[in-house]
């Protein structure tokens, strides 16, 4: 397997020059040729810095040579058509792909300058620093309090019950959920509405004081009002955390993010300031996607 991968790398030079494709080319065709990235992949104040990340699922080359920074106190939106690898890339950032059988990740991913891919890195503290919120709200079948207390308990963040309660309350407050659940902390988390469940999952993620929060389409299962609440919450959370959000909604990307990355069939096509990407995309594929020509 390893040999196969390195052979593939040899055939595909790592940083092919960024070049614009002719407009008449069928942009949805899956070709094995690597596309380079246009735009500003680097941030001035990086929290995470990824260089030449490749992901293989068995024989499938799911992510090809992606280099991308996640800046401090910024929301980075990842957009692109289904199956373009944006979720796969997101799951590299806290090594959630370790749990997927047959998935191999190569390249360099730095968190505050330290390589999280190094063999001696333990995923437990890593995931405490890089939290995750999933597409479908997935509260544990426990009480609201226990859901939020789960992380502090497994990481031993609270010395006493009072301290634990303080963490739970402040996390729920930060997730804008405290007012709605303060009278029923002992009720099961699964009894909340979809939007409340998702905010509970965000409270659960921030209870362990992460530096980065990864969000995988956090609003795709929610109604517009719940979505608005979550988007507002994301904007507030930006003050303390770096946030990386995968979304299918370009409006959402435009509303919440400062930088946007466009993925296409495993390649990172274009990165840049959100305002610039949506107004003046440099790459034809990006333009096709955001003007709704496909995707």
């Amino acid at each position, binding site marked *: 397997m390893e040999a196969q991968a390195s052979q593939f790398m040899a055939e595909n030079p790592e940083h092919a020059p960024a070049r614009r494709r002719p407009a008449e080319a069928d942009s949805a065709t899956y070709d094995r040729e690597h596309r380079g990235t246009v735009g500003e992949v680097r941030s001035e104040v990086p929290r995470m810095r990824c260089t030449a990340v490749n992901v293989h699922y068995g024989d499938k080359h799911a992510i090809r040579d992606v280099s991308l920074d996640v800046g401090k106190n910024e929301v980075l939106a990842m957009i692109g058509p289904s199956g373009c690898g944006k979720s796969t890339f997101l799951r590299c950032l*806290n090594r*959630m792909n370790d*749990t997927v*059988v047959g998935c191999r990740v190569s390249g360099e991913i730095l968190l505050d300058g330290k390589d999280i891919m190094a063999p001696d890195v333990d*995923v*437990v*503290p*890593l*995931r*405490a620093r890089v*939290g*995750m919120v*999933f597409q*479908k709200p*997935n*509260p*544990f*079948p*426990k009480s609201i309090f226990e859901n939020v207390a*789960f*992380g502090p*308990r*497994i*990481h031993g963040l609270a010395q006493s019950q009072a301290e634990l309660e303080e963490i739970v309350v402040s996390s729920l407050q930060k997730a804008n959920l405290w007012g709605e659940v303060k009278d029923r902390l002992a009720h099961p988390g*699964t009894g909340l509405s979809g939007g409340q469940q998702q905010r509970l*999952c965000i409270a*659960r*993620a921030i209870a*362990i004081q992460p530096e980065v929060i990864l969000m995988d389409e956090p609003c795709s299962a929610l109604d517009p009002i719940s979505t608005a609440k979550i988007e507002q919450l994301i904007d507030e959370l930006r003050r303390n955390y770096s946030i990386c959000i995968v979304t299918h909604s370009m409006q959402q990307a435009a509303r919440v993010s400062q930088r946007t990355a466009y993925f296409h069939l495993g390649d990172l096509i274009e990165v840049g300031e959100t305002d610039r990407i949506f107004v003046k995309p440099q790459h034809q594929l990006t333009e096709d996607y955001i003007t709704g020509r496909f995707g």
Partner: protein
Amino acid sequence: MTQTPLLIVLLLTLSSLAYHFGRKRAFAVSGGRIRTLHSLPAYYGLYAALWAVIPALLVLALWLAFEDSVITRLVIASLPPETATLAPSRLNLVLNDIRNLVVGNIVSSEPDAAILAAADRYRDLRGISTTALFAVTLGLAAIGGWFAYGRIRPEYRSRNAVERILKGILITCSTVAILTTVGIVLSVLFESVRFFQAVPITDFLFGLDWSPQIAIRADQAGSSGAFGAVPLFAGTMLITLIAMSVAVPIGLMSAIYLAEYASPRVRAIAKPLLEVLAGIPTVVYGFFAALTVAPFIRESGGLFGLDIASESALAAGLVMGVMIIPFVSSLSDDVINAVPQSLRDGAYGMGATQSETIRRVIFPAALPGIVGAVLLAVSRAIGETMIVVMAAGLAAKLTANPFEAVTTVTVQIVTLLVGDQEFDSPKTLAAFALGLVLFFVTLALNVLALYIVRKYREQYE
């Protein structure tokens, strides 16, 4: 009746003829344009065929069910009055003689003229009955087929009619299964009621002494006839407890390993291997328990100075536990796999280790289902017979010591009913009462288990 197979073949032939002609007629009435028919031609054929065969088969079944009793009654009516008014048991002997004469078997005594005449009459009646049966059923098949054939018109909804008939057949089949269950329960219930007329129900349920040998003659010694079932249920519970304390930890741990840790390849090999345990016949477990495990336990107990009976509850319980492992592991494995992947992702995403995820998220989520699985295994253990018959012993001792021999409800049912028995003594009827209580215990456990499992399923839907 020996000619029944021939009759059935004839009926099926008629039915397939009806199919053929029905189909042809459907083509004919459509005038070659099949689209004008309501249903496909085959449905018209099937409709005719079903009409030909089903009424005839019903009549055939009823006829065969009542033929013998009707003929017997007619024969009795023709007997001389002094024979016809004999006591039922004596009359049965006479009737047996008559039947034996008819088929040419040896008879108990030299037949007199009246019996010979009756035998002739019996033979005649059988002959008439057979001829009439052929005539009636074949006639009915022809009429049914003709009736259906006459109804075939392009607008006739034969597909709907055939679907209705098929639905009726399916309902009949499921009714048979349900009625069988009801019949078994009722027969056990009635026999138990007879038992409780001889032995008070409180003595049976709360008595501490089990000694079912009752005196057949008044002067017989040493047969007290005590029917206190408590020692039996205590023995059953003791063995079940031992079995579960083997099966639950091992089954559950292997389920967790298979569901959470094992690679797909290991799982593909290990799971079927584990399930082979469930395929071993219980009689093999039985002699394994009696001939290998029990002596081993007795001898190793001897090393520690323990006095262990050669038929100990421990041996039977241990082997039964091994037998039940695949139940627990297979059901728990399903339950653990049913826990949504999103919960695992959530826990891993928080930085939980695999064992933390299992202990704090997956196990609590799967617990109701696991409890259901364990209860199903318990009801299996309570009803298990062969292992305990061979390895647990017969002494009805009220003890909690696993090194002693105990007996179980199922073992006692077997010993009460094996061999020559009279079916009106409390001794044999006790088996039905035991069976009834056992039935209710396992039924209650199953209902409880299914209730818990179902409640658990709803949680994620």
